[in-house]
Structures are given as structure tokens and as C-alpha cells.
């Protein structure tokens, strides 16, 4: 199962402060669906203002990026720049 980590403020808002989960998902879309089942309302928050780091690589606007069995997945704020 992949290690999935939420931002602390998102965890506080939706997951009673729990930040880390073990979840099996094929891709980001499926992962967000599974999180939504567990924490209703989190999908909009994770879909709208979030980037995802999968095994250290940051994806902006992710949806179909695949997640391996032992991947490390971090939800992060969207990264902008100057």
C-alpha cells in the first residue's frame, strides 16, 4: 500500500488531524475518490488548490498519474513562481 500524507491544515479540517494513511490506489484520481469516501468533502479541497508529490516528483493539476504499491504520496499546495 502507498503511504499517503495530507497537509496538516487539510488533515485538521477533514481527518481529525490524522495526516498519514496507507492506501492502495492505481492513480491520483482513484486515491482522491477513496479519500472522499473516508472524509466527505475532501475531494474539492484536494482537487482545487493542490499539487501532488509522488515519490519526490511534484505534479501540478494531477489526475491520472499512476501510484505504485510502495509509493510515497504527499498532497501539497499548488506551487507558483515568479
Amino acid at each position, binding site marked *: 500500500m502507498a503511504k499517503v*500524507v495530507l*497537509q*496538516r*491544515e487539510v488533515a*485538521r*479540517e477533514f481527518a481529525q488531524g490524522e495526516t498519514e494513511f496507507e492506501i492502495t490506489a492505481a492513480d491520483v484520481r482513484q486515491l482522491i475518490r477513496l479519500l472522499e469516501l473516508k472524509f466527505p468533502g475532501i475531494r474539492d479541497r484536494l482537487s*482545487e*488548490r493542490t499539487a501532488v*508529490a509522488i*515519490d*519526490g*516528483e*511534484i*505534479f*501540478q*493539476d494531477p489526475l491520472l*498519474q499512476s501510484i505504485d504499491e510502495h509509493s*510515497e504520496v*504527499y498532497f*501539497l*499546495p*499548488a*506551487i*507558483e*513562481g*515568479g
Partner: protein
Amino acid sequence: MGKEEQFKTATQSVESNGYKVVGTRPIRPDGVEKVTGRANFGADYNLPGMLIGRIIRSPHAHARILSINTEKASALPGVKAVVTSADFPEISPTARGAGEAPISFRDLSRNVMAREKALYDGHAVAAVAATTAAIADQAAALVDVEYEVLPHVLDAREAMKPDAPLLHADMFTKGLDPKPEIPSNISQRHEFGIGDTESGFDAADVVVEHDFTTQCVHQGYIEPHACVADNTEDGMSTVWTSSQGQFMVRNYSATVCNIDHSKVRVMPAEIGGGFGGKTTIYLEPVAILLSKKAGKPVKLVMNREDVFRATGPTSGGHAHARIGAKKDGTITAGELTMEYEAGAFPGSPVQLGCMTGFGPYDIKNVKTIGFDVVVNRPKVAAYRAPGAPIASFAVESALDELAKKLNMDPLALREKNAATEGTQAAYGPTFKRIGYLETVRAAQNHPHYSAPLGPNQGRGVASGFWFNIGGESSAAMHVNEDGTVEVVTANPDIGGSRASMAMMAAEVLGIDVSKVKPSIADTASSAYSMLTGGSRVTFAVGKAVCEAADDVIVELRRRAAKVWDVEIDAVEWKDGAAINTKADTSENLTLAAIANTAAKTGGPISGKANINAAGAGPGFGTHICDIEIDPETGRSTVIRYTAIQDVGTAIHPSYVEGQLQGGAVQGIGWALNEEYIYDDKGCLQNGGFLDYRVPVASDMPMIDTVLVEVPNPGHRFGVRGVGEVPIIPPLAAVANAVTAAAGVRMTDLPISPPKLLSAIDSEK
């Protein structure tokens, strides 16, 4: 040592790459147009029948708009249109645009034109368009705005107090549990971290902590914002403008004006500097609506004072840093609490500050908390590595203090705690291949670091980290009849991207770079591409260019296969030519030969790539700064400066060196000179370059650069973004140098002469 002797550049590659074009220094493709004055910037466009627009701006920092009477202005002969917020559609609080960083279009619309309240000195409240500039000025003076002046607040910590003047009655702090029931100027609380800082500090032998303050500073681009909009009877608007993204301007302007994207065509002008400040819009929707009302094209150009009063600076802010370490220098915990001024609407880069402050280090226990706070200043806009310099100033200054307490060399402390491949970053994910440690070692080995110092001189070092980003990018490539190649992308060239695109195309195609012509398309002539920012273009658009070149090569092989009557798999592409591997003797067709016979083999040859680029490699830098202080006047002078950075692979090293030098100078200005001065009514007093002092060439020594090349595995040539990192270390590098020279810790920027004198006096 003279400036010329001192200025040396160096490139340290960890791998031999064997490229023919990448890493060379051809003449820039846009050079002749720019040095001969032929290049057209935003204000250079003029159309037949064009009107001149003027914006009327609030003279108050915070005021309720009771009424706006435009009758006298409208009646003035020569005035063709007047607009106020009543002409703009109301935008839903949930409206979001596609493709760019998430923003509130409701706030954007209210920043473009104030509605119920003016929220800062210079906030636009109305606009006029007239046949001449003189009539437009006269009409602007005739617009009668009735205000109820309200108390204002300019500082984040002041704005956070319960009795502070409230900017938005409907703003409740997000990120708090329980959710607050009364409104506040704190838009959001953010928190990041790994491990457990409490146990980390318990394990520390030494703990340092300090409070730090930085001021809001402007990006300081030379070219003010300018545009021409032409709305025609069919509802189409064409906009010529200088920006960091023609698609951003289209998306934002169309949304604010509530019109279809397809009815706005944005023509990108050359851009005279942006540094993040042109990643949003101010004038374009106003020009569109004025043009629509007048039935004529309308030009709007800001003057310098408008730029300072009404366009995005970056945040000022406060930071409290606390770092603990073992006697051997191993850092056991780091904490950072920061309050950033967002300006009049939410959206400071405090989150990114939280994520980047401890970025260069391998620390098991980190906690960062950030507050996004609205104040009566212009809404902040991105500025190189948004948010990171402020956080880094606090962390890198605290590390300097820690090194002193541990009696340790400051670079040795950084070397001991350096993040490397496999380190869990302070914001969570695990780093892939990075080159931070290499920058520290390059600094240790640089002659600058061991050069002797004179009286009243001090040396400071600091490091910095930036993520770098990819994103949606497009490229098209067309082979001309003579075998030259057009490379068409859709990102304004603010850092030499034309040259880099041409060079990467030439490298992939195997042809001379002089045979490749790069150009930048308007929004009707190219697929979508995210704006130029975040140091993404050479990486992400470069990836698209490489893939478009691959696409062209496939087509060139197919055409050669037709000529030779073989399968395409029998044709290889090497050194700019197709090779028939099935031929008994050497048989090849150059790109030019294939192009010349394109009509016989199927018509025009082109390629394209539309991607959402991932794999941007993080960037790290380490800077060394020598300062001499004048104990009589308090003036600090930079006498030597070296910027060292892991740049992945430098496509055009001269441009990369320029990025490092420019970023360093902007950071030095932030550290020593730059700040907004307001009067007691909250009105800006130094809205010009005479009084808002950016460093000029005569203030600076030549900036020495060292390009450390640790290739990014996410790009075929190893490209990393390079434009953000160089502005991060200078704030602390300068402050640490002044601290070393003066013998007193400088925690409040800018380190102006009176501030330094006061600090020296307080130590006596």
C-alpha cells in the same frame, strides 16, 4: 583586486555531456531588435483612431466609496468613455480559471476596479478614455468620488490584532479549529512539518532563536504595465500587452469581463522585466471595457508612480526562527512562525515560505506555521521564488548565529546538515537527485571564501532552495523549404528562452543553431501554455520543444523512407540527416534535402507537442558576500559577491549567469535599500526610483558566478529552472556579512544606514 580581475565565472559539471549546441553561447536571437530599438514593448503599439485612457485612483488607504459622479467627465468634449465598477460584471466567489495558479477572480476583479471600498492608496476606482492624453487627464480630474475615510492598517502583526481596522467583513480565518465566528484580517493559517520538534529541541545542546522583519519590496521591472485593447462590433477584443503570459491575460481578462475566451485574442509584446510582477492583470479588462464603450481602440499606460502604488510588490513580513543542534553541529529541530502581508486581498506566498525555509537541510523535526494577513497595501504579486527569501532570511541568519555559538565554520555547519538524494524535505517528500551539497563544497573551495578581509569588513554566507515547476506547455515546429526551422512557442521571453528553445531544437535535430528561428505566438496561433514563471520555461517548454523536434524527426525519416522506398524503421536520424541503414553503401539525406523535396513526398513538414511537464528538478544555491561598513555613516557597501548554484545543465551559460547575477542584485537591494515609505494616512511617499532605491550598476561589484551542473533526471538535457533560487540567499548573506562587520546581529531589513548606526550604538 580590480573588478575585472575579480569577476570570473566557472562551470563545474559532474558529467561530461558531449552536446554540440547545448552549453555553447550563441548570440541571442532577439538581440539586434532590442539594441536597435526596433522591439515593440507594451506601450509601443498604436492603432488608427486610438484613444488614450487614464485610471482614477483612490487617494486614501482605506475608504468606503459612497458615490462616483462621472457626469462632468463624460460631458467634456473629446471624452469617449468612462467606466467604474458598475460596468464590470459581479464575479462569483467560487469562480475559478483553468490552467493557472488558483486565484479568486472575485478578488481579481475588485483589485482591477474597486467596488464597495478602496483598500489601498492607488486602488483604481474609475477610468476614462479620450481623444488626447491632455483631455484624458482633464476628464480624470473631473470624476467626482465621494469617500468615507476609514482607519487603515499596514503591518501584518498590527492587522492581526482583534481591534485592527477590518478590511473584509466576510473574511473568517481558514485553517483554524474550531472555525472562528468573527471576521479577521487573517485569511488563513498554514502549517507544515515533519517529526516532532519538541523532542528535537529536547535533544539539542544549543538552541538559537530570533525575530526577523522584512519590508514589502517591488519587483522593480523597468517597463511599466501597458496595453492597447481594440473591441470590435462582433464582440472580439484584441489586446496588445506586455505580460508574463498571453494565455494568462486572456483567461483573466475574459473571466473578469465575463466574455468567452475565444473572443479575446492577446498579442504578446516584448517584456521589459517581470520577475513575477506581470503574472497577473491590472489594465487589460479596463481597456477592453473602455474600448467596448467607445467603439475605438484604447491605450492604457501606467506611469512609475502608478506601478508602485497599485501593482504587486511582494510581501513584507515577520518571522520567528528557532533552531536546535548538538555540539557536533547536527541540527535536531527547526521551527519557523511567519506572518506575511498579502496586501488588500488574501494570497501572500506564506505557504511557500513555510515549505522552503528549511529546504536545503536534512532535519528530522521541523514545524513551520504561516499566517496570510490582509493589510491596506497593494495586493502582492509573485516575485522570484515567492515567499522563500523572507523565510530563508530568518533560517539562514539563525544558522549563522548557531555556527557562532558552536564555534563552527558556517559552511561546515551547512555541509554537515545538507539535504542530499534520499533526504526527506522539510515539507514532506523525499528528494531525488539534487546538488545542494555540491554548491556548499564549491563555496568552500572558492578563492573568495578564503580571501583576507580588511578593517570594517565582514563575510556572510547563506543558502536557498526552490522547487521549480513544470506545467502545461506547447511547442510547434515547422520545417521551411530551405531546411531552416521555425520553433513556435507561446511564452514571453523574459530570461532568454528564445535562445534556449532554438538551442534545444538544434541539438535534437542535429543542425546548426543558426538554422533555427524561434518565435512567440499569440493566443490564436498556438495551443495553450502556462505563463512564464516559476523558472519553468526552459525546463517545461523546453521539454515540449524537444518532443516537437522528435515529432519532426519521425516525419523526416518517413519522407526519406519514401524517397528510398524502404520502411521507416530502416531510416535512422543522425547529425541532421536521415541514413538508410538498408543501403549497401552510405546513403543519407540532409534535413535541407528532405525539406526541398517535401512537395513530392507529402507536403509541408511540421511537428508539435502539447504536454503537462513533470519532473522539474529542485534548485539550490549558496552565496558568499563581503560587506564593508562605514561606522560613521552606517552605509554598507558590497565589495565582493559570489553566487553558486546547481543549475542542472546550463543550456546557454551566459543567460544562466545573468539569472544568478540579476537575482543576487535584487536580493541585495531587498537587504540593504528597498522599502515602501507611507505617511500617517497610509499614502505611499516614495513611488519612484529616486526615492525607492534599487541597486544600480555603480553600487555593485561584478557578481562572480559558479554554475554547478548536477543534471536533472527529469529532462533529457538535465535542465533545472534557475531564475528563482538566486534571490533567496542574498538577504541573509548580506545581513550575516553586515553582522560580522558590525559585531551586532541585524534582524530587520532593509539594513539602512540609520538602522545600522542605531544597532551599533545600542551595542556600545
